[in-house]
């Protein structure tokens, strides 16, 4: 039976890409291991190798096609004795290694995750907000109700979070010779997640510094350079690896200003992806927002949109204090409108009201916002008008905005992916209780990741993370409509 060749995923978080080039044409013989095509995303270009032997019977996706979903059939391979007439019988692809999957018709193969009968995978897509991983899809409409920093009539440009972060660094490096970026694979490799793409070419190896795999050491080198007055951007490939360096971040970067009586601090940015990506299990899936928010002397930023990523990273680089800048791998490829301004800098320490509402308040940040936004949409359909606040900065925390909202809605739900004990939500709940007790009509509900190390299995991973239904349920509970 003819074998479908599917659009491969280059990474656990890739959802779609472009079919850049076919290296084989219809009728060509193909051996296992032959490079048959090139595909690209905004992050990388990769070669597609044939897994099976046969003849390339039909190309289903033409060269140059953009936004091809992962697992879409891109060609059909004919085995010995088969002809193009057999193509209608194609199937049998095994997306995501679902070994138990049975041969299915092409129509089903178009939604392979569902065809696999595995809800977890389908819902994994849901938490990535399907359709937002395109190279340049429709930008997500962000209903900015309270960002005073964008003048009316400003042109908006569809930008991925990845591009926004890169643009922020490039603009600041152009502006200030003392700004440089260092970390693993930031230069020649163009960034493990392609956030530093192009920086080496523009700024050279002096200012875009590849380090050995030495988190503790290069974090300390960065802090030392900052004490001497340089403005390092230290990229951690992920914040999971920054645990190796946490002494330098907490004991050296955060405390020196205080311990020196204000003489000397560390104007440094530590940035990189934080929190769960997809299917990378316990040691690579952890949110550090609450950890770093505990430390006086640090600022902690975790943006959701591309505009916030850009404006806040520029602010972080200019900030004379150490800033922990928490990104998210799943958000990197998502596209949002970014205002086209010469110098778009947002204030650290100010929340953004994503959506105004009157019935209940949801407070979240970073990727937690994806659940909050979807829950608010669902709840709107049920007649519950939710106010959604994106904290953007975890420290200093904009509690005033949260409390103003609670005074209006009288109900509060917090959403984050981190562990529940001593979570950001716990702190907010405690502060709201102390400062706005009389305005609360229900106990605050804090939605967090579950109190378990992140499991690998897709179904368990899904259970370990928050989900939209939980948020919807929580809002109904605080509204006594459950």
């Amino acid at each position: 039976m003819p074998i479908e060749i599917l659009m491969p995923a280059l990474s656990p978080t890739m959802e779609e890409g472009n079919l850049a080039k076919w290296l084989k044409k219809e009728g060509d013989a193909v051996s296992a291991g032959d490079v048959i095509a090139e595909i690209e995303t905004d992050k990388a270009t990769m070669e597609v190798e044939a897994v099976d032997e046969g003849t390339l019977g039909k190309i289903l996706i033409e060269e140059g096609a953009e936004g091809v979903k992962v697992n879409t059939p891109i060609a059909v391979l004919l085995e010995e004795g088969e002809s193009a007439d057999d193509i209608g019988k194609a199937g049998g692809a095994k997306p995501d290694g679902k070994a138990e999957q049975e041969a299915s018709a092409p129509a089903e193969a178009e939604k392979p995750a569902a065809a696999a009968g595995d809800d977890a995978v389908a819902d994994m897509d849901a938490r990535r907000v399907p359709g937002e991983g395109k190279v340049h899809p429709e930008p997500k409409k962000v209903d900015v109700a309270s960002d005073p920093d964008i003048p009316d009539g400003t042109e908006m440009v569809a930008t991925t979070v990845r591009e926004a972060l890169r643009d922020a660094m490039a603009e600041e490096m152009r502006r200030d010779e003392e700004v440089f970026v260092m970390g693993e694979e930031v230069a020649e490799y163009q960034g493990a997640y392609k956030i530093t793409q192009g920086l080496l070419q523009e700024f050279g190896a002096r200012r875009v510094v590849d380090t050995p795999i030495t988190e503790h050491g290069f974090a300390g080198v960065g802090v030392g350079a900052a004490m001497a007055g340089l403005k390092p951007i230290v990229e951690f490939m992920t914040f999971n690896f920054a645990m190796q360096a946490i002494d330098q971040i907490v004991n050296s970067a955060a405390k020196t200003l205080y311990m020196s009586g204000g003489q000397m601090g560390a104007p440094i940015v530590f940035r990189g992806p934080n929190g769960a990506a997809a299917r990378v299990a316990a040691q690579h899936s952890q949110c550090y927002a609450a950890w770093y928010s505990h430390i006086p002397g640090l600022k902690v930023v975790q943006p959701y949109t591309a505009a916030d990523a850009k404006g806040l990273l520029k602010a972080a680089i200019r900030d004379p204090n150490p800033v922990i800048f928490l990104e998210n791998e799943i958000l990197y490829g998502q596209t949002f409108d970014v205002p086209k301004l010469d110098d778009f800098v947002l204030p650290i320490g100010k929340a953004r009201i994503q959506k105004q509402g009157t019935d209940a308040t949801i407070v979240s940040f970073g990727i937690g916002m994806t659940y909050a936004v979807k829950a608010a949409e669902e709840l709107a359909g049920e007649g519950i008008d939710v106010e959604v606040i994106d904290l953007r900065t975890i420290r200093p925390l904009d509690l005033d905005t949260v409390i103003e909202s609670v005074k209006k809605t009288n109900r509060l739900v917090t959403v984050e992916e981190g562990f529940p004990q001593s979570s950001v939500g716990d702190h907010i709940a405690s502060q709201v209780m102390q400062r706005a007790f009389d305005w609360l009509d229900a106990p605050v509900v804090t939605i967090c990741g579950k109190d378990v190390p992140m499991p690998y299995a897709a179904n368990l991973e899904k259970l370990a993370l928050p989900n939209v239904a939980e948020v919807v349920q929580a809002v109904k509970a605080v509204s006594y409509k459950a």
Partner: protein
Amino acid sequence: MTAAPKRTKRGPSKSKSESGLAPAISVPKPANFSKQDELDAYRGMLLIRRFEEKAGQLYGMGFIGGFCHLYIGQEAVVTGLKMAMEDGDQMITAYRDHGHMLAMDMSPRGVMAELTGRRGGYSKGKGGSMHMFSKEKNFYGGHGIVGAQVSLGTGLAFANRYRDLKAVSLTFFGDGAANQGQVYESFNMASLWKLPVIYVIENNRYAMGTSVARSSAETDFSHRGISFKIPGIQVDGMDVRAVKSAGEMALAHCRDGKGPIILEMMTYRYRGHSMSDPAKYRSKDEVQKMRSEHDPIEQVKARLVDKKWADEDELKAIDKEVREVVADAAEFAQTDPEPDVSELYTDIVI
């Protein structure tokens, strides 16, 4: 065990690395000191000694709290290196830092008042003995976490190279810190990027109470850079002239763009690790032998007298002047007010 500082086994002028892994470096002869050099070294070391003795007293009287690590016995190391340093060179060390600050010309009043936690201290009383800084004097701390200052000092050198400065970072740590992982992460980067940093390992033989022999598989710390192609030498850290000439050689090495270098200073601390250390791990004889035969200050004093560059009266006058400076610092540190309560919430972020 002999009390004499261990000299290099290969003799003073042999190449460091017979294996060829690190560049060959010769151990320079002790510097020729002029009368003025000897007098400067004498006064500098005496200031540290008297200051530390006073700090010990104030600790006993309850004016100084927490941890207090005295530098008595090791004075020649920082004094000799400072004599070799030039304007712009930076110094960073761990928590046995009072001597380093005095050598870097920080005011004895400001250091002592920090020890007593007063507003006139270098950190307004908020840092204490282990955490003091002076950007003005190029002293970058004063760090309480063993080994952390090694990465930080490497970062200072990174900044010097980034800015194309000739300045060198003198990064001090002890034989104990030499077993921390980040030291080797720093060695690797410093050598890879040819950073101008001198790693000064003050080998005073004890990491708290654990002797070098009980803690270190390789007890010759000048060899610790070989895997990273960093040359190193052992230096008699009790002889201020040997320290100065080693410092000059190392500074020239760094300024020539040859990258990092290790100076292992063979030294000894007379006092315990900190004030609360009963020093049960070594004999009184060992300490006494070191004091009587190798004291860095007595060595200078003997040369001054031998060469008739100073008589007892002149030396006493120097001692008196130093004691007055220390007494003034102690008086200031006891009478200066504690920081205003409003300082609790200042200097957290800018």
